[in-house]
């Protein structure tokens, strides 16, 4: 069958719907997922199709949304809990990093936590300081948790399905900016294994390492660079936990130059980890320091033009590439 062009929103919606059709124990819970049809419409039509038992509206109670999902998962259900936006997961922080990520280990494997916590992530739409986070690296700091961050519709569908079928807790974040973006998605079922990164573009001159929305900036930058004769390879890590860096090392050993691209804040972050591992794994192949393109290190403002100054973009990636190549 021919692939259809669908938005990441639609791909996520169908992934979730297919998994709920496939497995009775999969259900969704969260704020406004039911009657309201989902804040980002990922669960649009779900209440009507699956009913109140499996599509559960919650109060504005992020601690128990995450915590009750952990308990339900330990007991054998497969909850897909929606935290409306990742910003509110700061209220679920203990439940996610100290409960979900710990019970399997702490009780020596007696309990499994087949849980997915979905959250919309990202900024650049004037949501302002408290609502403008992409803190995936902060969550990925903690062992016991998986963290998935798709960069397009195709990956989103296969990754979410894999996350739902996995027996470990997965934090799954979805870039708000990517929801409407369409890409070809096969009709037949497919899974994208947890912890498998993907080379989105091949190139010999420089390695761009990113995930989620950063991949889009990287690919746009690669196009622009190509027009200037610079061939960038773009590696989409897809998952921050587990980190699949082999393709990055392999690529870097050919290109000898690397720029890491992230929507997140710069310090103690994604780019830090990639640069640290790369210089250790491929020291002899470094022709230049590894550069990072990240958000500016400020709380994010409301006014749109200064907000955009703080946000990474393709041009900033291009400039960084030229720096490392000079």
């Amino acid at each position, binding site marked *: 069958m021919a692939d259809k062009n669908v938005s990441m929103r639609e791909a996520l919606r169908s992934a979730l719907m297919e998994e709920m059709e496939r497995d009775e124990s999969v259900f969704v819970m969260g704020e*406004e997922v039911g009657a309201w049809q989902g804040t980002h419409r990922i669960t649009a039509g779900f209440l009507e199709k699956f009913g109140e038992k499996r599509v559960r*509206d*919650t*109060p504005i109670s992020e601690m128990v949304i995450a915590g009750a999902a952990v308990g339900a998962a330990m007991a054998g259900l497969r909850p897909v809990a929606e935290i409306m936006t990742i*910003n509110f997961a700061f209220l679920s922080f203990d439940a996610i990093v100290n409960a979900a990520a710990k019970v399997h280990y702490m009780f020596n494997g007696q309990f499994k936590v087949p849980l997915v916590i979905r959250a919309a992530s990202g900024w650049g*739409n004037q949501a*302002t300081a408290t609502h403008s986070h992409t803190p995936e690296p902060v969550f990925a700091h903690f062992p016991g948790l998986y963290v998935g961050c798709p960069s397009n519709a195709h990956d989103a569908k296969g990754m979410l399905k894999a996350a739902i079928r996995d027996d470990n807790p997965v934090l799954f974040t979805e870039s708000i900016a990517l929801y409407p973006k369409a890409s070809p998605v096969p009709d037949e079922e497919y899974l994208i294994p947890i912890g498998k990164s993907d080379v989105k573009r091949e190139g010999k001159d420089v390695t761009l390492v990113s995930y989620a929305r950063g991949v889009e900036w990287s690919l746009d930058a690669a196009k622009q660079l190509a027009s200037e004769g610079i061939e960038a390879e773009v590696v989409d890590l897809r998952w921050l936990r587990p980190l699949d860096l082999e393709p990055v090392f392999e690529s870097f050993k050919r290109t000898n130059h690397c720029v890491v691209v992230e929507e997140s804040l710069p310090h103690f972050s994604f780019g830090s980890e990639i640069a640290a591992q790369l210089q250790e794994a491929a020291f002899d192949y470094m022709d230049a320091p590894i550069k990072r393109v990240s958000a500016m290190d400020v709380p994010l403002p409301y*006014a749109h033009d200064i907000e955009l100054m*703080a946000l990474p973009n393709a041009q900033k990636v291009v400039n960084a590439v030229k720096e490392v190549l000079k």
Partner: protein
Amino acid sequence: MATNTIAPDKEKLLDWYHQIVLIRQFENACDDLYKQKRITGVYLHLYSGLEATGVGSVAALGKNDNVITAYRDHGIAIARGVDPKLVMAEMMGKRTGTSGGKGGSMHIAERDLNFWGGYAIVAGHLPLAAGIALKEKYVGSENVVLCLMGDGSTNNGYFHESLNLSAVWDLPVVWLIENNLVGMGTRVETSSGQPDLVKRAIAYGMEEGPRVDGQDVIAVHQAVSEAVEYARKHGPILMETLTYRYKGHGVSDKQYDVREGFKEELDEWHHKDPITILANYLKANFGDIQPELDQIQQEADKTVAEAIAFAESSPNPTYEDLISNVYV
């Protein structure tokens, strides 16, 4: 300082009428401006329909008292006396805005008026309110804190911990729930095991305040004035106003303009419109007052028009603004 709780005189009533009309007019303007993309972004939560609660409750405060609220904050700012020019400038993300354009619609504040701002994490401002009240108690002042919150925020952990702390520390806070029956789309009965929200005071051994008609500014003012006096003397009190929002939750609401399935409820509440109720009261008590009301309407229109003009002619923030105030 003591707060006046005697029946409000004509002057005060006309002042409230002016504030309510001004807020309504301001919100209507924001609505238009957003549709014209002159106000941008994903968050814009209008106060239309709730004006009597904001105006009546803030009017019960003295100038040294404090007020803090959630993201639905334009009306509270205006009721507290923030210049609509500066509020509109903030809506447009201008350098002249209350927060220099860095806060936006959800984060209006005016330190000089003890308006501690609007906050966007649901219930996240409740502990701040407790802390501000602690300061008042710490320095031995008589000032209180009015903390407005939505019905949906009462199911959050912040609500529990903040109200309990205010009770064990006897903090001078009036916890005021603006119960507009719904969160974004979830109704109070669906989200709260105890839909009679003021009853939650019992869980903290706290004074259970009244549940008042949030559309009647006089009733709200009376009830909040008593609550403020109680808080000054004895400590925290929880109260509730029953009110309604005409628009959807915010501009991102699919039913922002057309609220399918809510037509009857909307009609019912439009009949209880704060402006109508107050206008009728004024007519019944002060004879032919229509000319004055019309004039107030015109003033409000003018004020909003000037606010828009001011905002649009104001400069945008600069890179300097982007990187300043991260730290003191």
